């Protein structure tokens, strides 16, 4: 087990280094940060001087080396746009994104599992048909449209929920949470639903397909023959055996919920790292972009590791396999 984790960690470091390299190669095509830093009154020599000072005239590998060297010391530089330390910016924005991600993951998991099990156990009922049809909408509508649609219905027309922002936040030891205030919770509802819809339908369809598959297996028939209760068969045996792929997908999806909350955050003006990233891309704020991409790579690496460890817990075969080795 320990050897496995160590091996995984070593692989993770390589992954992150590759992400950093690719990100840096892409930055050269995003545009010229100097153009957005200096106004139209600036002269050519100002541009040249600033480029020199930011080290943009250095060859690619020198810039990359400098970035890696600083990153290893936990130093990501100062944002060109906001002129504040990047690590500070990301840390201050992180609680918003994490709260949004977990809220939407919870919605996705709870409803996805429930509906998935329901539609698998009663595949021919009318309700299942309705749910399956609606789920198609969830998969196929772009997040942006869902968000705008929800804003239109619940904020503009009904005026039940706020259309943007995070409401009031409470500072608990540096973690600014919106979960403790009424406005904070109300603000969370629409973005969390928007972000969860795709994952929800994905999990639901996955659970349903896996469950239907498992219910056809011989051991389920034998269990039935032995006269076990329906409940024990469906939840004790069938559901448990569908969990391995569900955990994988949910875990990876949690990563992408954090990483790709960008659209939702932009639509709802949610002050998380995603909207920070978008604002930075527009003005080519390289320090923020680099740090953000590294952070996302890190999130994926960690989640993958946790998912791998969870396999051990859920699937006894893997434990046996590891033991033999």
């Amino acid at each position, binding site marked *: 087990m320990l050897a496995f984790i160590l091996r995984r960690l070593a692989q993770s470091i390589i992954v992150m280094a590759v992400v950093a390299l690719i990100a840096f190669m892409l930055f050269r095509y995003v*545009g010229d940060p100097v153009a957005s830093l200096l106004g139209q009154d*600036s*002269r050519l020599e100002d541009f040249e001087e600033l480029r020199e000072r930011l080290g943009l005239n250095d060859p690619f590998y020198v810039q990359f080396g400098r970035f890696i060297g600083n990153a290893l010391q936990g130093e990501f530089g*100062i944002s060109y746009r906001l002129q504040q330390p990047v690590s500070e910016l990301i840390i201050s924005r992180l609680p918003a994104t994490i709260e949004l991600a977990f809220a939407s993951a919870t919605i996705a998991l709870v409803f996805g599992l429930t509906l998935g099990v329901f539609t698998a156990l009663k595949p021919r009922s009318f309700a299942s048909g309705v749910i399956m049809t609606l789920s198609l909408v969830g998969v196929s509508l772009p997040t942006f449209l869902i968000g705008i649609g929800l804003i239109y219905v619940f904020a503009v027309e009904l005026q039940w929920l706020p259309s943007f922002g995070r409401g009031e936040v409470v500072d608990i030891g540096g973690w600014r949470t919106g979960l403790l205030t009424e406005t904070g919770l109300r603000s969370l509802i629409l973005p969390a639903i928007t972000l969860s819809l795709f994952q929800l339908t994905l999990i639901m369809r996955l659970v349903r397909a896996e469950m239907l598959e498992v219910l056809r297996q011989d051991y389920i028939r034998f269990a039935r023959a032995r006269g076990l209760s329906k409940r024990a068969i469906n939840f004790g045996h069938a559901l448990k055996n569908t969990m391995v792929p569900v955990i994988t997908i949910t875990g990876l999806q949690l990563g992408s919920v954090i990483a790709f909350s960008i659209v939702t955050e932009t639509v709802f*003006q949610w002050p998380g790292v995603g909207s920070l990233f978008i604002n930075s891309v527009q003005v080519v704020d390289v320090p923020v972009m680099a740090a953000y991409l590294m952070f996302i790579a890190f999130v994926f690496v960690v989640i993958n590791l946790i998912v791998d460890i969870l396999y051990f817990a859920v699937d006894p075969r893997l434990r046996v396999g590891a033991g033999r080795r």
Partner: protein
Amino acid sequence: MRKLLITASVLALGLAIMPASAETIRWARNSDALTLDPHSQNQGTTHTFSHHIYETLVDRDVEGNLIPRLATEWSVKEDDPTVWVFKVREGVKFHDGAELTAEDVVFSLDRARSDKSNLKQLHSAVASVTAVDDFTVEVKMTGPSPLYPNNLTNTFIMDKGWTETNNAVEVQQAGSTDDNYAVRNTNGTGPYILVSRDPDVRSVLKINENHWAESKPAITEIIYLPIADNATRIAALLSGEVDLVQDVPVQDVERLAGTAGIRVETGPENRIIYFGYRLGEEPLKSSNVTDKNPLADSKVREAMHLAIDRNAIKQVVMRGQAVPTGVATPPFVNGWTPELDAYPEKADAAKAKELLAEAGYPDGFTITLDTPNNRYVNDEAISQAIVGMLGQIGIKVTLASRPVAQHSPLIQNAETDFYLLGWGVPTFDSAYIFNDLVHTKEGQYGAYNPSGYSNPELDKKIQSLATEIDVEKRNATIAEIWKTVQEDRVLLPIHNQVLAYAMKDKFTLAVHPENQPRIYEVTIND
């Protein structure tokens, strides 16, 4: 519990209405101020925010006139045309209680023209700044500079003592690694005091009860809310969560104007949208004509001018929200005349084709048009319209659309044959346009002139504008320069951008030509 809540809210209400009429405005626009350090960025959004906390010596009203603010008068020194004398307003206090004196003005002007300041170009002609007495400042220029006060409308005055105490004398530069106190803290003389700030999320300002102006603003609290997404920003206004939206997309103007309870104010911005092209002898890089440059022939440029239907662009692309023009200067600017502004009512494709044929291109030619797609109102759509209009006379245009961060370097490095650009004129004088767009690209001049246009005689005239103190003579020179620019079709102007502000109808706020609305000028209708 409910009773307690009611008591609490009654108490809170009582506290809130303590000042005779407390009025809060929630002001949304598409982005946040970049910094609170008033000399660190020369950027409109940042200046607009700073104008509420800090003040400048002179200011610009909604008609574009120069008006006194922290300076009560200003004039050229009688016996020395290179010295500007400013009288500093007396009895002005900074938010921390310190008194404004000439020393603070000298300190601020020196800070604004220091090496690390992004405003230094506006003060490049300054040789030295000195305090003559407690309320008089003399600015010595390197030569006669008749327009220098025009450059001061965004140069904010800071308190010397406060800045020094907090080690913020040096302006923070992009890419530096140290943190600067003035980036996140303020101490101005302005009508509002910063209460809290959460960058990109929300800033709160409250009224400065000790402000020097006699008339107090109607708004006592400002909540500033950056909302990047257009649809969300408008939705927030419709749902009543914000009171004022500054950046209204053109496609929403009509709908909002027809919505009950919402007022839309529109007005021209001091910004021209134009096309430029490479017109030197050197062949174009993106054309099928490889032995010479078709655009070097003034007939071809005239044909392009005639082929463009500016009214159609206004109606179709801009939904009526533009002021078409035939000259590359907004009407606010000294040097603009209605004669220059005239443009063909309709495109004349037949005449344009004739001119092309005369120039030797009966079948037209190909060229690539570089356009930004996130900088000006509907910039990419304007360029698409131009592609169609030029196609009608046989000029086959390929459109290359990029975000502004990639578009600007093409212009600065002269790597484009044909491009769209917008130009604001903060000095409200034609010289600002000539210096950067018309003068040959060399040294301090022509930074945004990738066209290869070079007219030494004209360059001499342009340079003379900087130091000519005889106003009439100077204006005559400006008129001459415009005449040549128009005859040579150096620039291909399309229209002046129009701004729209949308607000709850209990508020009134006129559009500011530099898109720097002042909340202290908001009036409340009962």
